[in-house]
């Protein structure tokens, strides 16, 4: 049954790749049909509870094909199917033939390829095939990121993404090769009893962490997410970086863990969460800002996973289960609301042609659907009740709070982690108040923003679907507990608890009540407005005689206070000419938050490497005489070492 569904899914995607160039409608139909088949397979595994495993005699690269769809794979496959399908529909209008005659054809084929290879990563249970699928997924994503390749920024972003991905894949090559060398087979599966495999986890953490956008390995992420077309950004942020999380969850479940791994993962998670949102606050580019929130949310996921690993080490199932469930559920939640937000940002970009928040403003009026749905996503990502973001963060909080009562080292670490998680949520809220305020409220800051128009049904539909999913998880979290239990039992057999924890039940009730109250309040307000009508009045204009749209809060000024707290790591670049004297000649202010890790760490390191390589390269000039001289010096040095009593 599952095999047939998966075969149908693969057939749909391959057929989609073939017809994608010529027939957009047929492509959309095939892609959606394939995704539906894949989703059905994943849901039946999650609901039915039986793992699907297939050993085949077919050799690929000398290794027999081994596929496996268990709870963890199915969980990620559901996210992939949802965002992949929504993105395909969205792209039909957003990246249409009419607007992008050249790249729209290519985009369809690569989209199918990306979804297919991501699914392959999820189901392959052979190290070699995992690597092949991983590499193909990286390449498909590269071609999608650089779809708009006439823009130099898109090309540069693609290049950075490809370079960073290859560093990651290098670590993964080492990881899988060492794993195969020590176990004697490329076949993957639970091997928790091989204690000698534990140190390999560090390689996996680097490789998968780089792909997941973990701080400080996130350097490629802001550029790639910001410069890719918005449906691709949604896929990258919603699903592609989750593959790094998948790898970490998968192999932390299958392999024995080195001591302290949980602490490291949790610490990296906290750093990613706090610094990711700090960087996001400093951004003026709408999509770049959303990209930094991916770093933040990956951090939240890893706080959950990290504390679950700590619990494994201490044998404390009670709170570890909650932390893990929170982290895992946040994978879905972030995938859903981040895709929704990127679709919303794409809709704004589509309507105004600008990602620069200081050129937008007042879009609520011309784009009510986009504004409402973006607002919904913003509430969800800020972790506010009654939406899904709060549910997963609540589970992580529950895990941390229960850990404080466990009378172990975890108790001490859980308190600061919970506080920092709270700080992260507050800053995310500030950040999205800034975004929604600057982009959708106020008056249009530019002519493009004034001419904005609402997006069409094909773009609105996917946003509605994702928004509805966010609301569903928010209002009925208990329904999703069995899914989390399934993933937990695939991660550590015996950890799962089929009955949902009582606080989750209560949370669902509170959320429903809150939603009902909010609906009622909204309805009352609306009725009042209808009854009495609206009276328009001027806001207080600070005494200016002729206020203009430019006299509004900008993105930079709104977040100024908080970015100043983090100036030690953000290093914002500010150029300003203050208005001085009685009749000032002119004044200007310009600020920009660079990618500090890339510009202050990676680039100087790269410069040093290039200088050293260049110097070595100059030594290779083709003169035999000098080469012999190097040889003589080398021999003399070796002789010196030997005489000095050294070992060679």
């Amino acid at each position, binding site marked *: 049954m599952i095999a047939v569904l998966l075969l149908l899914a693969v057939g749909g995607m391959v057929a989609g790749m073939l017809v994608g160039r010529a027939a957009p409608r047929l492509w959309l139909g095939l892609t959606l049909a394939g995704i539906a088949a894949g989703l059905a397979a994943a849901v039946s595994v999650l609901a039915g509870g039986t793992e699907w495993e297939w050993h085949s005699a077919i050799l690929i690269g000398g290794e027999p094909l081994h596929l496996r769809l268990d709870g963890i794979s199915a969980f990620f496959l559901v996210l992939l199917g949802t965002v992949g399908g929504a993105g395909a529909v969205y792209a039909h209008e957003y990246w249409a033939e009419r607007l992008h005659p050249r790249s729209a054809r290519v985009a369809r084929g690569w989209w199918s390829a990306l979804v297919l290879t991501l699914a392959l990563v999820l189901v392959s249970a052979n190290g070699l095939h995992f690597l092949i699928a991983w590499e193909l997924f990286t390449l498909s994503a590269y071609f999608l990121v650089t779809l708009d390749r006439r823009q130099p920024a898109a090309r540069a972003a693609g290049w950075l993404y490809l370079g960073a991905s290859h560093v990651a894949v290098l670590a993964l090559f080492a990881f899988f090769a060492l794993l195969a060398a020590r176990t004697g087979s490329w076949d993957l599966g639970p091997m928790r009893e091989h204690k000698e495999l534990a140190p390999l986890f560090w390689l996996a953490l680097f490789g998968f962490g780089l792909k997941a956008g973990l701080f400080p390995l996130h350097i490629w992420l802001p550029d790639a997410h910001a410069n890719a077309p918005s449906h691709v950004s949604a896929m990258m942020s919603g699903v592609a970086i989750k593959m790094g999380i998948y790898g970490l969850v998968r192999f932390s479940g299958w392999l024995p863990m080195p001591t302290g791994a949980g602490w490291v993962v949790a610490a990296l998670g906290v750093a990613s969460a706090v610094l990711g949102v700090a960087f996001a606050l400093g951004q003026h580019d709408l999509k770049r800002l959303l990209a930094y929130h991916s770093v933040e949310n990956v951090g939240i996921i890893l706080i959950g996973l990290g504390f679950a690993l700590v619990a494994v080490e201490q044998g404390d199932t009670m709170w570890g289960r909650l932390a893990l469930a929170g982290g895992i559920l946040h994978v879905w939640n972030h995938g859903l609301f981040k895709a929704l937000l990127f679709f919303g940002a794409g809709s704004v970009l589509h309507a105004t042609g600008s990602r620069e928040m200081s050129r937008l403003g007042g879009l609520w009026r011309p784009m009510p659907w986009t504004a409402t749905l973006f607002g919904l996503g913003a509430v969800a990502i800020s972790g506010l009740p009654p939406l899904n973001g709060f549910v997963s963060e609540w589970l992580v909080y529950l895990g941390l709070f229960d850990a404080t009562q466990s009378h172990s080292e975890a108790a001490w670490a859980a308190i600061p982690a919970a506080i920092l998680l709270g700080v992260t949520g507050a800053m995310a809220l500030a950040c999205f108040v800034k975004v929604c305020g600057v982009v959708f409220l106020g008056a249009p800051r530019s002519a493009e923003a004034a001419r904005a128009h609402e997006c069409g049904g094909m773009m609105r539909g996917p946003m509605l679907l994702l928004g509805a999913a966010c609301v569903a998880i928010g209002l009925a979290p208990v329904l999703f507990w069995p899914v989390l239990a399934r993933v937990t039992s695939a991660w550590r057999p015996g950890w799962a608890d089929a009955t949902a924890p009582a606080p989750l039940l209560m949370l669902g009730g509170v959320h429903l009540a809150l939603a009902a109250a909010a609906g009622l309040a909204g309805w009352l307000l609306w009725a009042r407005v209808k009854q009495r009508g609206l009276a328009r009045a001027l806001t207080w204009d600070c005494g200016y005689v002729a206020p203009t749209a430019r006299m509004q809060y900008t993105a930079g000024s709104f977040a100024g206070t908080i970015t100043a707290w983090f100036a030690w790591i953000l290093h914002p670049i500010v150029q300003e000419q203050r208005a001085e004297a009685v009749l000032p000649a002119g004044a200007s202010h310009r600020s920009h938050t660079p990618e500090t890790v890339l510009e202050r760490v990676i680039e100087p390191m790269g410069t040093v490497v290039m200088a050293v390589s260049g110097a070595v390269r100059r030594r290779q000039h*083709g003169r*035999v005489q000098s080469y012999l001289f190097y040889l003589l010096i080398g021999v003399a040095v070796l002789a010196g070492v030997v005489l000095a009593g050294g070992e060679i």
Partner: protein
Amino acid sequence: MNNYLNLLIGLAMGLNLIALGSSRLPSLIRAVSAQGIVLGLMPLLLEHHPDWRVLVVVVATVAGKGFVIPWLLRRAMRAATIERELNPLVGFVPSLLLGAGGTIAAVAFARLLPLLPEHAGSLLVPGALASVLTGFILLIGRVKAISQVCGYLILENGIYLFGLLLIRSTPLLVEAGVLLDLTVGVFVIGIIVDRIQRAFDSLDTRKLTVLRE
């Protein structure tokens, strides 16, 4: 016995210096050929009961190093119509000084090495080191291909001298094999020299740098 051997090695060390100091290619080739003959005779002194195999090796070494290879080099020289090394990278006087310094250093250095008692009094190790150094100086300091071949030959002579330390444990056949390689190598270089000369009108190896990739 040891005295005769040391005399021959001293002679070879002197020939090193002559090779370093001579700017004319014919005298350089002559020094190399003389050194080859001197070294070729040594197994006779080292082997207490020379049998016919030692004799064959001696004859082959003397013929190869003393006559065949120098003849090939002279032929290449005539084909290329060059007589002198005009612009060496390391001048003749500096290379002579370097060679002399190297020889003294080699003698001093050999005292530091943990040698077998029967080799302690002989000049075999200092001679070998001095020859290897001389070979390197020639290879590094000279630009004409023929001078470099000579440097290579002297380097090989140094290795041959080291090999003589092991004459009891290593069959001379190994040395014969090395000699054969060398002869073939010189053949090849002779042919290449001829081709380079025809293609570039010069034997200056510095001009070969475009071939580095």
